[in-house]
């Protein structure tokens, strides 16, 4: 049973494979999550770097605006030309808002709020200084304006602002470089993770394919083993059937030969017994004539008794041999399947035994009998034996009743023959179907052959027979037959 073993080990294997594949799936999911997280991280870092770049540019712009406004202020003071004041007028108002926007847009990563506040303060002071200077110059207080210029307050503010901007820009660049360096590392890591993930996917795919192929191979191995077992079984069944057929044929031949060879000596025994009887008559006539014996009557009776026993024994033996012959012939007779109107068949069987029924003063009722596709001669024999039996064992009180009924159960047809005769002891229910065995008081002639014959017929048609009976109440013989006889059954006895 290699096949079953394979199937079992297949189950065990597949459990291990499932665990392995599950672990593989978990690993793949973790790798994917890690890779996704890295992508997000890289994206946000790139965003921060871009933000820092924009912030850096804004710092530069604030510085440039401050310078432009300052040089415009100075040009105006030196040249006293309104033409120099135009850039001042254009940009002055933007200086403070630019500085304020800068504070708003500083990236959180830089932590520069305090220094920017200082820067704003410086720019505000510078703006005030420039505004006051320009106002003085415009309002004919040029000396005061020049004097303020000379005390270098404005220059110092400018220098301080530039220093702050430079420091801020340097810090921003440093931060950006740090982020970019970090991003490069992350990118390397992501690449490694992705490569590992790819390799893992490939590896697990190959693993799965390998598992599949292995379990497929095991399955087809199991399949082949099963097929082989099947073939072997069929072979075994065929061989057994052939052996049974041979044994059966042998028994048939044996029964046939035995019954014939037993008959030959029986003819002699019977023949020469009759010859002896003739001789006896001659002998006794002569003895009487010679008056040699006084009591020839007694002697003659003894002779006759002996002859009687011999003859009745021979007759009985002949009937037994005929019974064996009949069963053996029945077994070798081919079956012919035809549609039988069972009711009609039973009525004709009954008409053949009408005399016995009248003798017993019995009533016989035939119910609705379903037709059957079977061997006519066998069905006829079955009914005639069962009906004759039923009549034979009825009580002779004129109350005898026989009922013949039938019905369908699935594909089977069931016929029953019931009587209210003397019944059969339950201990004998099996025995009565055996050859030459009888039950109850032996007051009815017969060889114990009928039911054995019926049972052989029913078996040959692929059916079964059963009896329900109680002593003194009656018997019901129930014959279950397949609705159609299979062609192969024609071979079996």
């Amino acid at each position, binding site marked *: 049973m290699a096949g079953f073993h394979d199937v079992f080990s297949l189950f065990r294997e597949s459990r291990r494979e499932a665990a392995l594949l599950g672990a593989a799936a978990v690993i793949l999911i973790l790798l994917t999550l890690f890779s996704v997280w890295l992508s997000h991280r890289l994206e946000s870092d790139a965003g921060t770097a871009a933000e820092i770049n924009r912030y850096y540019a804004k710092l530069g712009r604030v510085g440039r605006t401050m310078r432009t406004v300052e040089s415009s202020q100075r040009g105006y003071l030196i040249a006293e030309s309104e033409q120099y004041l135009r850039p001042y007028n254009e940009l002055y108002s933007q200086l403070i808002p630019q500085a304020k926007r800068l504070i708003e847009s500083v990236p959180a990563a830089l932590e520069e709020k305090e220094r920017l506040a200082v820067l704003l303060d410086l720019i505000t002071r510078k703006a005030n200084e420039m505004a006051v200077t320009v106002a003085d110059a415009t309002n004919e207080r040029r000396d005061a304006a020049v004097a303020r210029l000379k005390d270098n307050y404005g220059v110092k503010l400018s220098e301080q602002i530039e220093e702050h901007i430079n420091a801020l820009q340097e810090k921003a660049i440093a931060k950006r470089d740090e982020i970019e360096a970090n991003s490069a590392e992350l990118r390397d890591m992501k690449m490694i993770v992705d490569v590992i993930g790819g390799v893992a996917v490939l590896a697990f795919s190959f693993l799965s394919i390998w598992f599949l192929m292995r379990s497929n191979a095991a399955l087809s191995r199991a399949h082949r083993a099963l097929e082989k077992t099947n073939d072997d079984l069929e072979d075994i069944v065929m061989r057994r059937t052939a052996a049974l057929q041979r044994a059966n044929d042998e028994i048939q031949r044996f029964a046939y030969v035995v019954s014939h060879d037993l008959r030959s000596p029986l003819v*002699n025994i019977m023949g020469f017994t009759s010859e002896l009887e003739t001789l006896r008559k001659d002998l006794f006539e002569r003895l009487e004539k010679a008056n040699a014996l006084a009591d020839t009557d007694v002697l003659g009776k003894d002779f006759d008794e002996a002859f009687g026993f011999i003859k009745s024994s021979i007759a009985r033996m002949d009937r037994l041999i005929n019974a064996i012959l009949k069963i053996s012939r029945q077994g070798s007779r081919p079956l012919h399947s035809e549609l039988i109107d069972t009711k009609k068949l039973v009525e004709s069987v009954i008409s053949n035994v009408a005399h016995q029924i009248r003798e017993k003063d019995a009533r016989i009722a035939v119910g609705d009998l379903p037709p059957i596709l079977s061997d006519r001669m066998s069905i006829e024999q079955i009914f005639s034996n069962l009906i004759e039996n039923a009549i034979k064992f009825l009580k002779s009180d004129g109350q005898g009743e026989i009922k013949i009924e039938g019905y369908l159960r699935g594909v089977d047809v069931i016929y029953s023959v019931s009587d209210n005769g003397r019944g059969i002891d339950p201990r004998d229910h099996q025995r009565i179907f055996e050859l030459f065995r009888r039950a109850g008081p032996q007051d009815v002639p017969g060889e114990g052959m009928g039911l054995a014959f019926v049972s052989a017929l029913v078996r040959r048609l692929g059916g079964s027979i059963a009896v329900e009976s109680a002593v003194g109440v009656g018997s019901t013989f129930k014959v279950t037959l397949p609705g159609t006889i299979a062609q192969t059954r024609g071979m079996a006895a």
Partner: protein
Amino acid sequence: MNKPVTIVMIEDDQGHARLIERNIRRAGVTNEVMPFSDGASALAYFKKIESEPAELNPILVLLDLNLPDMSGIDILEFLKNDGHLRVAPVIVLTTTDDQLEIQRCYDLGCNVYITKPVDYEQFAVAIRQLGLFISVIKIPDPLNG
């Protein structure tokens, strides 16, 4: 004038042979009975007489089918395929009452088939009737049709 018919009896059972002969005699048949207890010696006899014209050796065959050395059917076949002997009446006398076998014998050209009944009265009656049959039977003359 034809030569009287010789009854060739092929029967392996001596008892049966004796009973048959006795009952034929009782029926008043006086023809010569030539017994054979096996098939081979009977065939040898048939081969000896087959070259002579049938009217010189008119025979009637009583044949048992169950012979120790061959089947009576073989002998029946031989007789019915023989140029001269085919006209000889053949009476098959055997224990077999198998319808198929009986039919086979008739098909091969047996004239009468008798089953040996165990009931002796019946047997005796059958043989005596056979005796009557033998005494009235006229062997056909192959020359004069």
